[in-house]
């Protein structure tokens, strides 16, 4: 019997993100919330109606909510106890973990495209229904920087889910740990200078605005803080998946 190809494993994991009402509605809700944010920006707010401004507006709902899709992809094997079946059908558990990661990144990239499209639709609507003028200028760096940011946060979601293996715990940790870390960093004077190196939020801030204009040092910030907040939990999470006991209760 030949081994299960990685592409098949990934497609199955992708399907598993979408084949329940909970999974599907999570994605639909994120799209609706993103649209609601854009609607407020476009028709209620003042001035920020260019395509670029609307595009930046999508980053908050995406950054906040999309990683939950990644968290759930990893934790559902435990919360829904499907691990008994999944890991008997593919006992090479690291491959399953990596397939979950790739599938979640696929969802992230697809959703990023949806967000860009939503921003475009709202910009068209603003131009059509108000006296705002068409303003489509956007730097390529802002677009692929935003895409990279989406990928980083999605992967971080999977990493926290794999490491903590409990949905509520992983969601709390995902939001509370980096935030409290940033808070501590801003209060402790000695940490202020090193924060861009160790704090993912600080390091990735310039990515969204124009990744094309980033300096080498800024890229080094992204690399080191991603190593701490993404690669480290991801590695530990994959090790935990590979070694832990899979039980039904």
């Amino acid at each position, binding site marked *: 019997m030949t081994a299960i190809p990685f592409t098949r494993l990934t497609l199955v994991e992708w399907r598993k993100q979408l084949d329940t009402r*909970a999974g599907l509605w999570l994605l639909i809700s994120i799209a609706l919330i993103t649209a609601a944010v854009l609607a407020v920006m476009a028709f209620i707010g003042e001035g920020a109606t260019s395509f670029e401004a609307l595009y930046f507006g999508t980053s908050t709902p995406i950054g906040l909510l999309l990683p939950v899709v990644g968290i759930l992809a990893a934790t559902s094997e435990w919360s*829904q*106890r499907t691990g008994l079946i999944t890991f008997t*059908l*593919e*006992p090479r558990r690291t491959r399953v973990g990596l397939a979950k990661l790739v599938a979640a990144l696929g969802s992230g990239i697809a959703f990023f495209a949806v967000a860009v499209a939503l921003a475009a639709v709202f910009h068209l609507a603003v131009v059509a229904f108000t006296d705002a003028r068409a303003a489509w200028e956007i730097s390529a760096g802002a677009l692929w920087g935003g895409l990279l940011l989406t990928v980083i946060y999605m992967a971080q979601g999977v990493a926290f889910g794999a490491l903590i293996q409990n949905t509520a715990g992983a969601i709390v940790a995902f939001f509370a740990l980096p935030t409290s870390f940033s808070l501590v960093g801003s209060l402790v004077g000695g940490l202020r200078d090193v924060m861009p190196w160790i704090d993912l939020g600080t390091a990735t801030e310039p990515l969204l605005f124009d990744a094309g204009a980033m300096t080498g040092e800024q890229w080094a910030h992204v690399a080191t803080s991603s190593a701490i907040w993404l690669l480290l939990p991801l590695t530990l999470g994959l090790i935990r998946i590979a070694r832990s*006991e899979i*039980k*039904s209760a």
Partner: protein
Amino acid sequence: MITADHLTRRYGDFTAVGNVTFEARPGLVTGFLGPNGAGKSTTMRMLCGLTPVTSGTAHVLGMPFRELTNPGRRVGVLLDASAQHAGRTGREALTVSAMLMGVGRRRVTEVLDLVGLTPKEADRRVRGYSLGMRQRLGIANALLGEPEVLILDEPANGLDPAGIRWMRDLLRDFVRSGGTVLLSSHLLHEVEKVADEIVVIGNGRIVAQGSTEFLLSHSQRSLEDLFLDLTADVSRDAAAPATHESTRENAR
């Protein structure tokens, strides 16, 4: 073929499974009998590579389970019928497994038919399934890859008498064509009726094993009395493994 050789699992000071050695051979239904908490499920999870072993070895089809490539095509496993995503339909749960194993969608319809889940039931979410329906879904999942070996933990739980009868026939057919079945149960009468060989476990240790015929004639009583005696014995008497050895010798 399933082989457990001095299989041991300890959790801290607690020995959940100690020195368990047995075989389940092709063409036979091997019943794994013991009261709740005796170590049946832990043993089965070790056989399937889900629970790390403390010591000893577990082989399925001649190798550790985790070394099998695409094991779903060779070994059908049902460890907990309730361990399904509540939000998936029965058909979707099987479709996910079928995609992973690389068997066609037609096989999903076939096994649904085989276990007696109607198309309407198959399209309902597992959340609304009775335990009996979940067992049927779990058995369908185990049969999906047309395996040579079945490992089933308490598959008769929640089945009605007709369902138990149906499963017994299914397992008899399966071994008649050369398959290997290991099934656990605390339902003594059920095991007595379906198993060719019985392994009795109590407090993590094997207390008796042999052919069903031998175990029944040897005691001249029902297997239930034997089972209750043996499992009661092991909790009082640390020398129980000796019983197991002698019973085993006689059984050959």
